[in-house]
Each structure stands twice: as C-alpha cells, then as structure tokens.
C-alpha cells in the first residue's frame, strides 16, 4: 500500500472513477484492465459527448444551411482545432481526420510514397514495428519495386542505433518509425533520429499510436513530417484517427480517396479538389466519433499529459519490479527508455493459457503476437502475455496481476 500511494498522484488516480467500464466484475472479480495498448476505455464525458451529439446536434456536416448541420459542423471542426492544439500543429490544414492509425499510414504510403518511388529506392522501418507500419510499406514496395529496409533491434528490444544510422542513407525515401513499440514498450530516440534523417533530406513518418495517449506531443518540436495516431487508444471512439502532415507535403500529394466533400467542383471534364485538409477527407466523416475524440482530448488536457506520463512511469517501474520477482518469469522488452507496456512469459505456460487463467480472475491482459510478429520471431516466441498501462491503472492492478500469475503457476505446477 505504500507503493500504491507513491504511484498515484491524487489527480491521476482519481481518474479511475470517470471510467464506467472499469467498475464491473468479470468472472466474479473486480475487473483489472491491463489491455489499454490494444484499446483504451472511455471516460463518461466521452460516452456522453457522443450520445448527446446524437440526441441533439446530429446532421451531415459542411454543406448544410440548417441549424443542426451548423451545430454538427461546429462540433466536428471544433474537434479538429482541439487536435491541432493538442499536438501543437501549426495549422488546422495539417490535421487530416482518418479512421485510425492504419488508414493514416496507408494514406501516406499510397498518396505520398507510391507516386515518387522507383525501383532501387528504399523505405526504412525498424524491426519493432506494428503490422500497420509494415504491411502498407510492403504493399507499396511491391507496387513500385522499391525496397523495404528493416533496422535491427537488440535483445533488450532497443533499436540498434549504429546499425540504424548506417541504414539511414540518402536513397531512403521515407523513414517510418514507431514512437513507442506496442509489443515491448520501447521508446525510440526520436529526438536524435529525426534531426539526423532531416539533415539527409529524408521525410519521417512517426507512428504515434502508442505515444499520444501517454506523453505530451509537439509535432513541431519533434520535427517529423507525418504523425499518425488512433482515437480509440487515447480514450476516444474507435473509427477515428489522425494524420498530421506538413502542409507543404500534403499540398503536393494527390487525394487518397475520391468522393463527396474532398472536391470543390466535379464535372465529367474534370474535377477540382478541395483545400487541405478536406482534400483527404472523402465522404461523410465519422462525425460522432470525432466529437468523442474532441471530448477525449478535453479530458486528457484536464488531467495533464505530463502528469499522466509521470504516473505511468512510476507505475511501470512498479510493474517491472513486481513481475520480475515472480519465479519462472521472463520479461520481454527491457529497454532503458520505456513506456507503460510489459511483455512476459511464465515458465512454459502458453500465453493463451495464461490469458485464460488471468481472465478467470478478472485480470484482462493481451496475449499473442500483438500485431508485431517480427518482434515475436526476433525473440523466438510465438507470442507473449502483455500488460499495458493507462492513466486509470494503479498499483493494486499490478498486485492483482502478480497474484493471478502466481495462481497460473500453481495450476501448471
């Protein structure tokens, strides 16, 4: 309990009560939710913002003169403004609303890279990436004859920085790199890497899916050209996401999808595309979802991202310490710089069995490959158990996890 008090700053620990999903029993035990890296729970304010929007303000956006359409447009575009200031983009034109990180990355692969890749050109990624930051590049490389180059990692799950720099050559047409590995929690040294890439004229896409929910983000000081993230990992709705892109790059890119809203004029002789960011937002957007994302940003801002980072950092230390003390455990992902994710293996218990036993005790973790099969291959495992933290977790959650793991060990003893 002393640990509990140490970990929880009053303001951050209090947040837990704002999340209705956390206050339920699962298999007759109070739920311990340690799967936020897969998808986070929502505070009441987000759930209600979406429901209120639907009850009172819904209509299609952008093209309507009636009151509901104005309210919907104001709510939707107001959320864009919130996103802009949350990540400190220099203009709202740089905030393209997508359905998630995956679509954001595919958009860059197809609209930015595909037209400018030739055989022999390279896309550089790392061995740490999520499938969503691998497969879009495999596809565009196959389409264009470009080559996908993968920077290696070491046994702690860190980028091998020397090897990385030796691969960062001037035939690289894009560096696509995670801010935080979802499987291992590794935080990549973007403050060093991005300036180096930029000095070689290499555009940089940052997969921020696991960054933005957990630390303050400033895309201008990061210096990246693209930054992709998902609403559902930052306590907002599924089906929402963002692609931040520098205006000059977005401007020069062809649209990704065609349809309503992304045009100024359509005729069969030719079509004039709309201004940024609308050029990349074809069709009716996820209005209610984006309204919810705006509410999630309000919520995060009220708690404070630095505070959240500090809370999670302390809790991660506690998690790693406590898990490390369990006999027969192997921690996977022990980088010096980490965010609140810990993968592990227990004895020779298959992670799926472990997941079932933990779930039976009300402890929700993720098991399997975490959409990062190359990471699994690297560590020679088919999958891991993974506990991931968010602002609403506390030391008691960690204690419950460790207890549940001990029980699994007894069953398999």
């Amino acid at each position, binding site marked *: 309990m002393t640990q509990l008090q140490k970990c929880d700053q009053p303001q951050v620990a209090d947040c837990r009560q704002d999340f209705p999903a956390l206050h*339920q*029993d699962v298999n*007759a035990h109070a739920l311990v939710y340690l799967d936020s890296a897969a998808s986070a729970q929502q505070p009441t304010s987000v759930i209600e913002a979406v429901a209120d929007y639907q009850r009172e303000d819904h209509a299609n956006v952008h093209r309507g003169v009636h009151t509901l359409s104005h309210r919907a447009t104001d709510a939707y575009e107001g959320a864009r403004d919130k996103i802009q200031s949350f990540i400190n983009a220099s203009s709202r034109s740089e905030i393209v609303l997508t359905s998630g990180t995956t679509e954001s990355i595919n958009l860059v692969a197809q609209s930015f890279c595909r037209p400018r890749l030739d055989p022999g050109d390279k896309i550089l990624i790392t061995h740490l990436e999520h499938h969503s930051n691998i497969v879009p590049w495999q596809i565009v490389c196959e389409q264009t004859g470009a080559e996908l180059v993968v920077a290696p990692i070491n046994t702690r799950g860190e980028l091998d920085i020397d090897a990385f720099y030796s691969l960062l050559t001037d035939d690289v047409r894009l560096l696509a790199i995670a801010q935080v590995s979802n499987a291992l929690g590794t935080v990549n040294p973007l403050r060093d890497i991005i300036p180096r890439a930029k000095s070689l004229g290499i555009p940089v896409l940052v997969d921020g899916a696991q960054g933005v929910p957990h630390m303050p983000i400033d895309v201008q000081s990061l210096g990246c050209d693209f930054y992709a993230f998902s609403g559902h990992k930052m306590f907002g709705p599924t089906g929402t996401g963002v692609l931040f892109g520098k205006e000059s790059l977005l401007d020069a890119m062809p649209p990704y999808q065609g349809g309503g809203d992304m045009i100024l004029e359509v005729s069969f002789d030719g079509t004039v595309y709309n201004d940024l960011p609308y050029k990349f937002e074809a069709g009716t957007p996820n209005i209610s979802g984006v309204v919810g994302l705006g509410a999630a940003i309000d919520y995060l801002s009220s708690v404070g991202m630095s505070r959240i980072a500090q809370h999670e950092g302390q809790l991660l230390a506690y998690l790693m310490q406590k898990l490390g003390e369990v006999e027969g455990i192997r921690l996977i992902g022990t980088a010096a710089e980490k965010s609140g994710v810990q993968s592990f293996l227990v004895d020779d218990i298959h992670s799926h*069995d472990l997941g079932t036993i933990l779930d*039976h005790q009300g402890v929700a973790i993720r098991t399997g490959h975490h959409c990062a099969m190359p990471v699994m291959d690297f560590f020679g495992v088919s999958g891991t158990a993974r506990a991931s933290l968010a602002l609403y977790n506390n030391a008691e959650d960690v204690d419950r996890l460790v207890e549940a793991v001990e029980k699994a060990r007894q069953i398999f003893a």
Partner: protein
Amino acid sequence: MNAVDLHSGDDLRELYRELILDHARNPRHFGKIDHPTHTAEGINPLCGDKLRLSVRVDRHGNIADASFEGSGCAISVASASLLTDMIIGVPVAQALTCFDIVTQRLTAPDVDHERDIGIDLSKIKALDGVREFPSRVKCATLAWHALRSAMHGQTAPVSTE
C-alpha cells in the same frame, strides 16, 4: 451482457485437469510418421496455435498410424495428443464420427454423447472443462477439424477463427 459469471473457483482445475496437463507436457504421437496418406494443417489465429496432423490409412480403411507436429496452447496440444491416441487402429468412418461427437460434446452439452460407436471415448471427457470456457472450444477442436479436413483431402489449412 454484463452478467457476472459465477464460475466456481474449480472451473480452472476442471479445464486444466491432470490428464490435460499431462498430455500437454508429454504429447503422445508428437512428430512425424512414415508415409502419411493424409495430412492437414490447423491454425487458430486467435492464439497462434498451428498444428500439422498426419495420418496413414491402410488398405482396409483403418487408421494405421497418426501423429502431429506444431505448437499451441495446453488445450490444443492435449486435444491433439488425445486425438492421435484415440484414432489409431480405428476405421476412418468411426474416426469421423468421433469428430461429430467431440464437437457436439463441447458445444452442445445437452446432447446424448453416450452413443456407442465402438471407440473408447472416456478420455475425451477430460476436455469437458472447456465447456465453461467458450473461447477455448476452438483450441480443443482444432486438431479434430484438421482430422476432418485431412480425411476430406483438403489442402488449404483449416482455421478455427
């Protein structure tokens, strides 16, 4: 949807019975057999289980030998091990009846499973604990699905997801 499942604390012990853990740790017929006549792969993307089942059917239509390779969770490995144990020496038609009985037994517990088909089904009861864990039924039936697809000469891997 938020009903509290009142699992007794023993559900886990039921799932991971001694027999299951034993077969999971020491799978029988693990490896390759000579001259398999039928093989099939079973994949459960949910937990990454991946099994390859090999069977040799003799000219009388009996299963002369069977084995499996691959990796998976305790339930799927134990189930595969039990399967190979059960089907060796059994006519193909009976083995396929076994498939029906096992899948019914795990998914529709009210059916009368005690039909006598001339195979010792007692070991199969070891899997009964899975019923309380619907998410694990796929693990328990993976090898059985592979058996059926091997017998039907399918070549694409079967997936239980």
